[in-house]
C-alpha cells in the first residue's frame, strides 16, 4: 500500500519528466481515459491563456493563470464520482473541468458575473463544485463540512478540497485538517504547491521541510506527489478517495508543481522570480511528459496529438463563446440571491434603482 510507504521528502512519481515509467502503471487506467484527461489538460491550458488574452482586450476580469499545474488539477478532479463534491481556489478551475464542470461556467465568471445555474448545470446536472474560492484557505473548511455532512447522512460521497501552498499558513487550513482528523471526514485535502504565493516563496510560508508533514501533527496520513505527473497524481488521489469512501478518513496531499504564469493578470513575476527557475520548470511541463508517454504507448501519434490539441483549443473557444453569448442578468441583477426573498427595504432599493436607471418594471 502506498500510504504506508511514507517518504515525505520524495515526491511520488510514476512517470519521470521524460515520460518514462519509473513504477508500474496505476491499475485500472485505460488509454482512453488517459487521452481524455490529456485533452482536459490542454483545454485547461488553452482556457487559461484565452482568459489572459481576453483580459488584455478588456473583455475579462483579473485572472490567475493555471498553466503548469494542469496535471495536478486534472488528477484531482478526474477521480471523483457524480455524488462527490469539489471545492477549490481560483487556480483550481482545471480540477472543476476534469470533474465535468463546464468551462463556460468559469468563462462566464471571467465576464465579471456570477455564473447562473443554467450555465453551471447544463441539462440540470449539479456538478457539486462550489464557486471558486477567493479568500485563501477558506474552502478547506467547506470541504470538511461537506464531508462531515456526507458522513452524518450516511452517504457514500467524498469531498476534495484544493488550495495552494500559501494557504497552508492560514488558520482555516489548519483548522480544516484538524476537523477532518477529529471527525474522520471523508475528505481529501490537496495542496497544490506551485512554489509561490504571489511573490512569496514556499520557504517563507513555513520552516518545515515540506507541507505534507503537517498531516502528522493532525493525525492525518499525507503524501507528497509529483504534481506534474498525471499518473502519480491520479494514483495518489484514487487511493485517498478510496480510503475516504471506505470510511477510513481524510488524507492530505501535497502536489509539487509550478506556476508557469503570473499570479494574476495584474502581476509581473519577473520582479521576483529567477529566470532559471522558470526554465527548469518549463522543461518539466506536465503536457510534454504525458504526451511522450502516450506516444510511446501508441495511444497517441504526433498527428493525432496535433488534432487533439487543435480540437481542445476549438472547444475552449466555443465554450468561451457560449459564455459570452449567454445573457447577462439585468442591470439590477446584483439584488438577486442575497436572501431567498428580497427584504422590503431591498425591494424599495431595487425600485429606486430601476427608476434611476430608467429600467421598466420587471426587467
Amino acid at each position, binding site marked *: 500500500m502506498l500510504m504506508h510507504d511514507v517518504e515525505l521528502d520524495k515526491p511520488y512519481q510514476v512517470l519521470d519528466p521524460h515520460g518514462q515509467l519509473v513504477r508500474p502503471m496505476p491499475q485500472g487506467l485505460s488509454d482512453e481515459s488517459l487521452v481524455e484527461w490529456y485533452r482536459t489538460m490542454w483545454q485547461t491550458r488553452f482556457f487559461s491563456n484565452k482568459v489572459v488574452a481576453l483580459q488584455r482586450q478588456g473583455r475579462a476580469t483579473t485572472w490567475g493563470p493555471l498553466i503548469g499545474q494542469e496535471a495536478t488539477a486534472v488528477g484531482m478532479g478526474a477521480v471523483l464520482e457524480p455524488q462527490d463534491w469539489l471545492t477549490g481556489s481560483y487556480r483550481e478551475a482545471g480540477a472543476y473541468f476534469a470533474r465535468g464542470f463546464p468551462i463556460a461556467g468559469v468563462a462566464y465568471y471571467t465576464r465579471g458575473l*456570477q455564473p447562473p445555474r443554467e450555465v453551471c448545470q447544463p441539462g440540470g446536472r449539479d456538478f457539486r463544485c462550489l464557486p471558486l474560492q477567493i479568500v485563501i484557505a477558506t474552502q478547506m473548511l467547506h470541504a470538511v463540512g461537506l464531508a462531515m455532512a456526507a458522513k452524518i447522512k450516511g452517504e457514500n460521497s467524498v469531498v476534495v478540497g484544493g488550495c495552494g501552498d500559501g494557504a497552508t499558513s492560514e488558520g482555516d487550513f489548519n483548522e480544516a485538517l484538524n*476537523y477532518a482528523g477529529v471527525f474522520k471526514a471523508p475528505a481529501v485535502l490537496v495542496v497544490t504547491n506551485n512554489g509561490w504565493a504571489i511573490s512569496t516563496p514556499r520557504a517563507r510560508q513555513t520552516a518545515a521541510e515540506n507541507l505534507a508533514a503537517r498531516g502528522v501533527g493532525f493525525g492525518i496520513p499525507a503524501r507528497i506527489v509529483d504534481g506534474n505527473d498525471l499518473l502519480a497524481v491520479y494514483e495518489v488521489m484514487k487511493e485517498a478517495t478510496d480510503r475516504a469512501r471506505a470510511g477510513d478518513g481524510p488524507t492530505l496531499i501535497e502536489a509539487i508543481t509550478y506556476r508557469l504564469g503570473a499570479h494574476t493578470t495584474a502581476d509581473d513575476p519577473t520582479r521576483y522570480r529567477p529566470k532559471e527557475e522558470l526554465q527548469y520548470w518549463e522543461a518539466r511541463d506536465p503536457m510534454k511528459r504525458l504526451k511522450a508517454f502516450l506516444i510511446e504507448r501508441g495511444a497517441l501519434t504526433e498527428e493525432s496529438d496535433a488534432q487533439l490539441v487543435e480540437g481542445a483549443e476549438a472547444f475552449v473557444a466555443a465554450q468561451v463563446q457560449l459564455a459570452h453569448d449567454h445573457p447577462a442578468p439585468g442591470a439590477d441583477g446584483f439584488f438577486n440571491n442575497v436572501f431567498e426573498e428580497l427584504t422590503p427595504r431591498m425591494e424599495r432599493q431595487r425600485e429606486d434603482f430601476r427608476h434611476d436607471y430608467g429600467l421598466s418594471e420587471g426587467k
Partner: protein
Amino acid sequence: MTMIATKFTIIEALNQALAHEMERDPRVVLLGQDIGKNGGVFRVTDGLQDRFGENRVFDTPLAESGIIGTSVGMAINGLRPVAEIQFAGFIFLAMNQLVSQAAHMRYRSAGQYSCPMVIRAPFGGGIRSPEMHADSVEGTFLQTPGLKIVVPSTPYDAKGLLTASIEDPDPVIFLENIKLYRSFKQEVPTERYTIPLGKAAIVQEGQDLTLIAYGAMVSVATEAAKAIKAQTGATVEIIDLRTIWPMDEETIIASVTKTGRAVVVHEAPMAGGVGAEIVAIINENCLYSLLKPVTRVTGYDTPFPPPGLEDNYLPTPARLTSAILRTLED
C-alpha cells in the same frame, strides 16, 4: 388548538425549540464547544446529545472559524446546522466564514447553493463576566448583507424565534442575552410554534413617545416607561425589534408617526450601531411628525468595560428615564 403552557426560562425555551426541531427535521444538527455531554456552558443544549446521539449533537475542536466554516459545508450538503459560538465576543475569529462565506454563498453561487444555518451566541453584560465575554456584536453585522440577526427578549419569543430561524432558508445569527437566560420565567407553550423573522413586537402601546429596544434592554425600557407614567402620566409605546435585520421599519414608522417622539436604547456602542440605523429610518420617513430630535441611549463608544465598571456603562432605567423626560419636554 389549545396550547398547554408552563413557565420556563429562556434557557429552557431554547432547549425546547432545539429538541422540537431535531425531532421534526432529521437535517438539524448541533455543533459547538462543550455542547454535548456538558450541554453547553449555559446548558442550552442540555440532554440533547443523550436524546439525539453524537452523530447529531457534537463537540468540536476549539476553533470558531472551524465551527462556522464546516457549518457552511454541512448546510450546502443538505443539513441544517445550529452552531453555538460559546460567547459572541469570540465570533471575530470566524468573521470571514460568517460574513464572506455563509452570508454570501447564495449570492456567489447565483442561488445554486445556500447556507440555511443558525449561529447561536450568548452576549451582553450585567453578569460580571470576564472581558471579551460581554460584547454586543449585532451592529457589526448590520453591514453583512445575506445575514439575518435575531435577538429575543423573552422565553416565549426565544422559542418561537429560534424555531423560525432554524426553518429559515438563509443564515441567521441568533444572539442570546446572557443576563436574560435565567432572569425570569414566562408561560411558554410546550408545542412547537414560530414567530416570523423581520417582525417587531409592540410590548406596550402608548401615545406620547416611542421607545425602541431589543434583548435585555426591553425590560429596562419597560421599567423606564413605568417610571415615566408615574412621574408625568405620559404613555410610552415600546417596540421590541426581535429581529434586528431585516428590520421591521413599518412598525417603527407607524409608531413614531403616531407619537412624534422616539428614543432608542441598546447596550452596544453608539457609533454606527442599530440606533443609528433606526434614527435614519425615522429621519427618512417621519421627519414631519417629529416633535423633538430622536435620542439614543446606548453603551458608550468605548470597549465593553471590565466587569468592575460595567454597571456604569450599561443603559439603566434611570438613564433611559431622563432621556425620555428630555424628549417629552416641549
